[in-house]
């Protein structure tokens, strides 16, 4: 267990460093990192601090948010197929962003797009909680989440459908694929505080999720307040994933695949899986963002495309393994 912790932390640190020293300018890693930490007065310091650092911090934070909320969602719903998008956060944040692009808010205000995406996430999650009721079962939460996700996706399609402006439609499609290029430190300051709130809410769920291994009835009888757990899961996921989607677009598969891969390594304990998935998610997103820049440095390969391209085969492998275990 400790070995896994060191291994994952080491991996994240290594990938973060690679992410920092990677760029179109041919500059040595040592020189880049020196310019990051000490103001050399050259453009390199500016590049490091204003372009590469926010990109690395966002990849780390968003990956951790997706991994953590995926693990929390799977633990709460006791279903290995649950994913943070299940409660409608990603879809409604995407709708908010799409409306911002379509109406021109995104073009006229500096942070119009991420703020509209956040507003979309807030509205979506409030509707889900309203529909599911304060004390419903996890099933009503799933149903409400699916309903709101579908509705938000339908509205997004409607906006695309009726869009008179092909450029806006193009921009919407690209935004929805998810990306971390051209993000600034301001994006970090917008998203990071919310993500930290989400991490705090989700990170303290360990013991409750462990107890839920035995079912809702047994957990409640062991003194776990299910209502509180439910609020913590939903608000934590909404804050972390809502902020992530607002600044980076929809990035799929991380929240689904990472907890899946790491579960056997933590003895399947949902509490221990939380921090492991946070580290694993950060590693996966950093690696994908590095891959985006290495594979097609000139082209604009989208991050969400890479995570799905890597995630889907990993998922297929997991299905294969599960099938073999069941036989």
């Amino acid at each position, binding site marked *: 267990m400790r070995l896994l912790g060191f291994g994952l932390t080491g991996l994240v640190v290594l990938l973060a460093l690679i992410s920092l020293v990677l760029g179109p300018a041919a500059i040595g890693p040592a020189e880049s990192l020196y310019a990051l930490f000490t103001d050399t007065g050259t453009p390199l310091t500016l590049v490091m601090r204003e372009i590469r650092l926010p990109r690395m911090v966002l990849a780390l934070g968003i990956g951790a948010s997706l991994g953590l909320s995926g693990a929390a969602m799977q633990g709460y719903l006791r279903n290995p197929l649950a994913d943070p998008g299940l409660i409608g956060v990603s879809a409604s944040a995407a709708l908010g962003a799409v409306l911002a692009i379509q109406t021109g808010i995104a073009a006229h205000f500096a942070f119009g797009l991420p703020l509209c995406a956040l507003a979309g996430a807030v509205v979506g999650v409030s509707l889900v909680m309203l529909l599911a009721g304060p004390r419903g079962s996890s099933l009503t939460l799933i149903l409400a989440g699916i309903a709101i996700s579908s509705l938000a996706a339908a509205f997004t399609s409607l906006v695309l459908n009726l869009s008179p402006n092909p450029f806006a439609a193009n921009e919407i499609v690209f935004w929805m694929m998810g990306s971390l290029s051209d993000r600034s430190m301001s994006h970090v300051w917008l998203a990071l505080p919310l993500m930290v709130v989400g991490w705090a809410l989700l990170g303290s769920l360990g013991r409750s999720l462990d107890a839920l291994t*035995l079912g809702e009835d047994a957990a409640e009888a062991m003194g776990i307040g299910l209502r509180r757990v439910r609020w913590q899961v939903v608000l934590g996921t909404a804050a972390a994933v809502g902020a992530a989607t607002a600044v980076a677009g929809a990035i799929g598969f991380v929240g689904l695949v990472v907890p899946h891969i790491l579960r056997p390594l933590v003895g399947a304990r949902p509490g221990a899986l939380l921090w492991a998935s946070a580290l694993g998610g950060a590693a996966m997103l950093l690696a994908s963002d590095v891959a985006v820049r290495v594979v097609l440095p000139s082209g604009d390969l989208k991050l969400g495309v890479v995570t799905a391209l890597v995630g889907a085969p990993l998922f297929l492998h997991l299905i294969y393994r599960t099938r073999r275990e069941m036989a």
Partner: protein
Amino acid sequence: MSLLRLSDISVTLRQRTVLERVSLEIGAGELVGLIGANGAGKTTLMRAALGLIPAQGDSSLAQMAPRARAKAAAWLPQAREVSWPVDVETLVTLGRIPHLGTGQPVGEMDRAAAERALDRMGLKELRARTVTRLSGGEQARVLIARVLAQETPLILADEPIAGLDPAHQISTMRIFRELAAEGHSVLVSIHDLGLAARHCTRLVLLGGHAKVADGVPRQVLTPDNLRDHFGICAHFEETAQGPIFQATEVVG
């Protein structure tokens, strides 16, 4: 000393009366068998006692704060849910959750309690096995061990011995009896009236949404009660090997 006091518990679910004015008190050192036909309200009574479903009337457990209640009574639900493939020892140690403060790791005392529970249920050899890969009966024993690890004065168990082999049915009832002798109390719902008659110190019969009989097995398992509430007749005899109860025919 009373470990559980229920007074006039009534439960209505979906406008259907399930229980009406059931009162029950359980003191220390009792193994109480809760019996009754399917749908008589055994599970509902236990869940209402724990405060897991809304009920009218008073329950000493339901009034407690959740954490205090979890230290006073352990609950073994009928559905044997194990959602993740954890190992046996980890699952049994989950029973210690009510005793751990926020962020407090599992300590020596908790490991010792889990160890005692594993030992009692004869699960030491299975400790490293994955629970979800065990047989149904073995899983049931692991879940009972989790309840024992909670080390509460009172245990409420919903059909704990259903699905166990005969030897483990008997040994589980013996373990409950030992716990009672140590001053704990156990309330079990049970369909095997033979085992109930042999091992329980007291039986409570539910029928027609109410408590119809409460006392030592001999007073409860009367021909009238068996006919009216189970629709059977039976042979019941005190022998040198203890009480022998065998249902014989369906009547009515």
